[in-house]
């Protein structure tokens, strides 16, 4: 049980009559990089958002590092939920940077308000992370003056400021111009190398193939097939996986 940092079991979620997650189960080991692929509307993002408690599920369980975020569709208290979700960081398709704060302000706001750290310590960590994502000279810029790729790198640094054990990526490169995806993927590659646990919903098949330990194919609210990149891309077993891969590769 304890060896998985994420355990999702029989997750169900409906928006009205539309069943988006039918019976989704997922296990992620510490330091594992899992890529979730699949056609639009298959429920990939909803699954990821459920992990971060941005969606409330109708049934099933999510266990994060041994703690129940939801057990058989029942959530614990708000404080407990916050405690559990604080172990995860999330990076969004549309960055969701705070436009009224500088890059540095974006990084430092949450740690200042939530963590019991000194301002000096937070500032030092922000500098470190800006350097890590290659934006050490952009600390005083506002998000509106950054390119999409730079914004997403700031968003990753912002998530890392909270020292999460798990990073969730919701189509992190889908809103970027093709020539800007590389710089973001490079940062993610580096994180994978540093053994960060990551769940990445993505359309970047090249990235999934190269960086993921495991690739999971989702369609119509369920996982159809999963395996190593070699297995899934090399010899997909399921017809739906084959159809999808034929279309996107």
């Amino acid at each position: 049980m304890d060896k998985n940092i994420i355990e999702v079991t029989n997750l169900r979620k409906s928006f009205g009559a539309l069943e988006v997650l039918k019976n989704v189960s997922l296990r992620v080991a510490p330091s594992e990089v899992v890529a979730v692929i699949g056609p639009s509307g298959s429920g990939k993002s909803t699954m990821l958002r459920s992990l971060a408690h941005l969606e409330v599920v109708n049934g099933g369980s999510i266990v994060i590092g041994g703690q129940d975020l939801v057990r058989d569709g029942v959530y614990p208290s708000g404080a407990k939920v916050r405690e559990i979700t604080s172990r995860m960081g999330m990076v969004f398709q549309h960055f969701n940077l705070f436009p009224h704060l500088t890059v540095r302000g974006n990084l430092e706001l949450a740690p200042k308000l939530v963590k019991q750290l000194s301002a000096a310590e937070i500032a030092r960590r922000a500098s470190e992370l800006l350097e890590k994502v290659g934006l050490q000279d952009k600390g005083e810029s506002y998000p509106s003056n950054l390119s999409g790729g730079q914004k997403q790198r700031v968003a990753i640094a912002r998530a890392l400021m909270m020292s999460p054990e798990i990073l969730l990526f919701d189509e992190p490169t889908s809103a970027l111009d093709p020539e800007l995806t590389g710089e973001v993927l490079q940062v993610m590659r580096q994180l994978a190398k540093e053994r960060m646990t990551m769940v990445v919903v993505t359309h970047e098949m090249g990235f999934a193939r190269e960086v993921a330990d495991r690739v999971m194919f989702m369609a119509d609210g369920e996982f159809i097939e999963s395996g190593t990149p070699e297995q899934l891309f090399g010899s997909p077993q399921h017809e739906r996986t084959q159809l999808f891969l034929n279309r996107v590769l």
Partner: protein
Amino acid sequence: MSLEYFLNITGPMLEGARTTVVLFFLAIVTSIPLGFVFTLMVKSAVKPLAWIANAYIYVMRGTPLLLQMLFFCFGLPVIPVIGEYLVMDRFAAACLAFTLNYAAYFAEIFRGGLLAIDKGQYEAAQVLGLGRWHTMTRIILPQMFRIALPAVSNEAITLVKDTALLYAVAVPELLHFAQTAVNRDFTIMPFVVAGVIYLLMTLVLTLFFKLLERKFKFE
């Protein structure tokens, strides 16, 4: 048209303009916070609060400010039994009407500002572990005020001109002195001077809000 005459009429008109400015400041510093309270009520999960706020906004926007002012000045005191306790100084009554009326407009302006904020902002705040209070005060409100700024500027300029409604309840202000001088001296000049004074006041406001917008450009 002598310089002496010009100075003669301008003195009392500037005196009147002071009343205009006082009303403007009292109304703006009270109606903006009050309007924001109504915005929060409209957005409140407690439905009765939302109903009250919506009804309030409907009534205050749906009736003339002039009617509201007359209501507070001359209407309240004639209510049987309690009317005698509701007699107010006319300037105070006018201030009250302005505040309550403009609060309704500001409430709608701020609500528009909230609507313009992407839901991703709330989500980003949530996944970073910010609570409701911090999300509101550090993420949402600064953006809301920034978005609302041009509309608030517009409203403030309208407020300057609406102060001329004091004329109707015979509180001597800028326009009152202009009208008096025109009647007495049979010249159009006082109206021109009044217009110029209004323009100067709105110019100051325009520049002030331009400055604010530039300061909060976030670029």
